[in-house]
């Protein structure tokens, strides 16, 4: 047992971090927000060229032949950058929907709560979307439709949930980094606010949630066990949603403005928490497992 990133995995993560920072740094993030959505097909293809969608396809199929753990690391980076778009759906469609692997085609899918992201931008939709109604999405970078009467968790496969959790983990990391950065530099009463325990302790709890979620998400990536995945999504949702809120608190009034990135983290985390399917059902699955194990 060596439950640590291998040298290759670390190199992959760093490489993806560089690519994502190049095509979707803070300026691009804000350009996208100011544009009011719209998917940039140029960098979607760049992601495709970097192997983002084809990662798990075999080399014969034009992929890189990597596994779920690597995909999780990549999606963590996407979550950290708040990369928009139906990334998970397109990744899962690679090898099934022609063009998805290379980023030529944008694929979306019906997710938890009967929500469909990026419906109007997508070339292909997985799932039944007849009668879908547009919502005024809370997240400026995730246009949403809702399919009336859809079963909230129907058809969600485990990988869809796991990769969503990986994105949540990445966003939780971003929130933690932003909080710590602000706490180190913002001064009040003649010292950095991070010197005050009330603030320091918020930051410490941010990290604790990140690290616990990370262990759960990475382990689920290795085992691909449905119960591990359910646990991972609960902890990753918590790390992202609570993390963004605490990060906002650490930023004070600044955190409540449109200009701070924090609200983008929180809103995306909310969207993804819904996308992962019913939280009650994940909890119930984990509860039932206790009885099965106990006999």
């Amino acid at each position: 047992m060596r439950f640590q990133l291998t040298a290759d995995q670390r190199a992959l993560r760093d490489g993806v971090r560089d690519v994502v920072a190049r095509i979707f740094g803070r300026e691009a993030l804000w350009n996208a927000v100011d544009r009011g959505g719209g998917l940039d097909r140029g960098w979607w293809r760049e992601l495709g060229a970097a192997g983002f969608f084809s990662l798990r396809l075999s080399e014969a199929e034009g992929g890189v032949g990597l596994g779920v753990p690597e995909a999780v690391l990549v999606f963590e980076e996407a979550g950290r950058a708040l990369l928009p778009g139906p990334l998970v759906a397109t990744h899962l469609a690679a090898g099934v929907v022609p063009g998805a692997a290379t980023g030529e085609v944008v694929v979306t899918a019906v997710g938890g709560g009967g929500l469909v992201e990026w419906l109007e931008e997508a070339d292909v939709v997985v799932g039944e979307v007849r009668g879908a109604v547009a919502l005024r999405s809370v997240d400026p970078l995730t246009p949403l439709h809702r399919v009336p009467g859809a079963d909230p968790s129907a058809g969600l496969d485990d990988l869809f949930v796991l990769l969503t959790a990986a994105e949540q983990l990445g966003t939780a990391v971003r929130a933690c980094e932003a909080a710590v950065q602000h706490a180190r530099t913002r001064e009040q009463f003649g010292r950095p606010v991070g010197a005050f325990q009330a603030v320091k302790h918020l930051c410490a709890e941010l990290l604790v949630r990140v690290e616990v979620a990370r262990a759960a998400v990475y382990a689920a990536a290795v085992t691909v066990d449905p119960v591990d995945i359910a646990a991972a999504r609960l902890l990753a949702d918590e790390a992202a949603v609570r993390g963004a809120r605490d990060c906002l608190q650490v930023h004070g009034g600044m955190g409540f403005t449109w200009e701070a990135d924090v609200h983008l983290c929180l809103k995306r985390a909310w969207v993804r928490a819904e996308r992962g399917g019913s939280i009650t059902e994940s909890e119930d699955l984990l509860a039932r497992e206790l009885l099965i194990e106990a006999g």
Partner: protein
Amino acid sequence: MDLSYTPAEEEFRARLREWLAKVLPSLPPKPSPDDWPGRRAYDLGWQRMLYDAGYADVHWDASPTTRLIFLEETEKAGAPYVGANFVGLLHAGPTIAAEGSAGQRARWLPPILRGEEIWCQGFSEPEAGSDLASLRTRARRDGDAYVVTGSKIWTSHAEVADWCELLVRTDAQAPKHRGISWLAMPMDAPGVTVRPLRTLAGSTEFAEVFLDEVRVPVANRVGEENDGWRVTMVTLSFERGTAFVGEVVACRRVLGEIAREARANGRWDDSGVRRRLGRLNAEFRALWRLTQWNVSEGEASGGVPGVGGSVFKLRYSRARQELYDVAAEVLGADALDLERGWVLDRLSSLSYTIAAGTSEIQRNIVGERILGLPKG
């Protein structure tokens, strides 16, 4: 990232499982919490059985992965907890193994492993808890001995301990972190008085220890004179880093028992209860994964666990309290009956956010030493 085990490790697990199935039914009944001689005999007896079967050194000499397997299997099987052997096996022992001289290792380690000697931890004092480095117990050099005077408090298992890992001030003039030394003190030395303290659970889990001109040989000092704070950090890193890992498995076992109780008494039908049970399952699963992560990280960097133990302890201590709160919800009115299982455990769990450094102190450590935030 790899969570699989080698054939040798799997074989170790299978052998251990088989052994546990054979010996556990033959164990004597657990003594009552206030029967100290009984508890000492029981805990040492279990350690002796482990020793005879070749499992005693698993905490120190085995690979970290083997240690994890050991903890996982013993806890799953409901084997006795380390109990009064806690300090010796899980932090004094590892500290001596890491910092002691060859002679000190030869003197103190084998009796711990054979289940012959029990250790306690004399760190805290009435005026020095979280601010441990402000401790005042004095040690004056007199020939080949230190003469120690002062008092310690909250000393777990002091009543049955043979040895105490004792922090003393050997230089009153030096800045507070610089004048401390780490001594091994025999508890039967003249001048040592133990006064048991009653915990809120009703038992005498810890004690006050008064030290009146106690002579401790200079040869019992681990590390250099006045370098005891560094040695203490080693001890605390074991205490926070690795000492609790087996308990995570135990908590999941208890959680399963609570679920079964809920099914038996009808509380299971309450979806709120089920959701809380499910969430705690996620929590303890994740804490176990974090343990595996930390152990693998430690294996890579070698030796003493890092401050990451504080991350684990913060979350674990809270989860353990929530575990018994759920148990109480499932038990309903029975949660007020001390005769019921889990009620005493619920009371004990209240200490987890205090002992071995409070959660507030752990958050300071995480904030300052991991995240690099300025000191307050």
